[in-house]
């Protein structure tokens, strides 16, 4: 039943990545047949091994590698850095590759304005702040927006080690 659910999720949730993103393993990790920790283990992916990242589902990514093909935990792999590419438009992400036209984004001319110096010298713009306040939405509007997106509240504590939340 759980696996059937997974298959249904594939159809609905998973945006396939058109071209595989190259990445590498940050540790030895098990390659699973399906994106679950209790799924059958296909092989062990070696630390630093190259992988082709095909798609992501939740905390799992589907990969091909010399060790085998299957699913590994998303946080046990990283996309290959684009640092060696020249220029200011070298940004890329494994999740962006499937999106057409994204490579042109950084070539768009636009306002920068947020360097360290810009912030130190910034003069207040109260007119923009007033405009921003008009965009704020009510709780009830936010709740309707969530219903439209089928978002459901879940109860979940902060992670262990988190200091207790600040009181208003």
């Amino acid at each position, binding site marked *: 039943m759980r696996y059937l659910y997974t298959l249904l*999720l594939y159809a609905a949730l998973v945006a396939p990545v058109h071209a595989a993103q190259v990445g590498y393993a940050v540790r030895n990790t098990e390659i699973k047949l399906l994106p679950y920790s209790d799924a059958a283990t296909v092989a062990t992916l070696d630390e630093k091994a190259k992988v082709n990242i095909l798609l992501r589902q939740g905390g799992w990514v589907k990969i091909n590698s010399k060790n085998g093909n299957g699913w590994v935990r998303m946080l046990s792999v990283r996309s290959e*850095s684009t640092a060696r590419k020249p220029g200011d438009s070298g*940004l890329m*992400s494994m999740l962006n590759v499937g999106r057409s036209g994204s490579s042109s984004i950084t070539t768009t001319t636009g306002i920068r*304005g947020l360097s360290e110096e810009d912030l130190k010298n910034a003069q207040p713009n109260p007119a923009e702040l007033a405009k*921003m306040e008009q965009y704020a939405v009510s709780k009830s509007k936010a709740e309707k927006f969530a219903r439209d997106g089928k*978002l459901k509240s879940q109860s979940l504590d902060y992670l262990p080690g988190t200091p207790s939340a600040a009181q208003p």
Partner: protein
Amino acid sequence: MRYLTLSILCISLVHAIPAHAFDLDFQKALNLVKSAQQASKTVDQSEEIEIGHGIAANLLGASPLLADDKVQGYVNQVGRWLSLHSERPDLPWQFGVLASTDLNAFATPGGTIFITRGLLLRLNNESELAGVLAHEMVHVLRKHHLAALQKGARMDIASMLANEALKDKANTEVLDKAIKAGTEVYARGLDKEDEFEADRMGIVIATRAGYDPYGLPAVLEMLDASNAQDSSLALMFKTHPAPHDRLMLLEKQMAERFDDFTAPAQADKRFESEVAQLK
């Protein structure tokens, strides 16, 4: 509070006697440190909001809002929904997309959150947007910037924040100084522990709101693979721990705890159409 104001007053008066200057300077410094430490407790919510709005106006002076009502409305709905899953749902939360092509996001005290157009365009779905906004919201919930302001600003500003000066609104000079010092925090960055805390708490808030817990990690992964020399990332990289380090910590903290949470397709898919006109 009254005692604190009185003690600062007394110390200032005594300090005017030069013969005892050395001893008293030391005592004064001690008292200023003490009062600065108490400021986060004594800056009340209306002051917090006022300082935050002042800083927000400055940030908007550096980059105006993106002129797009649809996108602004969309980001506000995601953010406001997230805020209902925090400890402070009744703050005047407001969200703005800055026109800047830089990749960055900011939070100012009292509930004002910004994301740049540059970063928004790098995201792939609503869960990633929720991850970024929830991270920023934690800075507000935990009052990270107020703490940084007191730690990094001149001690006299911090101590003035701790007294009554703001309450009677007479001393706008104090407020202006706090806002100026507060804005500089954004050029300098927060403690990296504050950033780690914002990651691990933000993930929980996004998950509570029904989003994919791995939205924020996916954004950090994208940043990790980005060109560190890219000038549009310069301030973000300077003011945050390396994405790789943040991901290593999250891997440990998240472990298998979030395996059973996924976002509904309807929410993640609407992202594309909501921001489509920006492309």
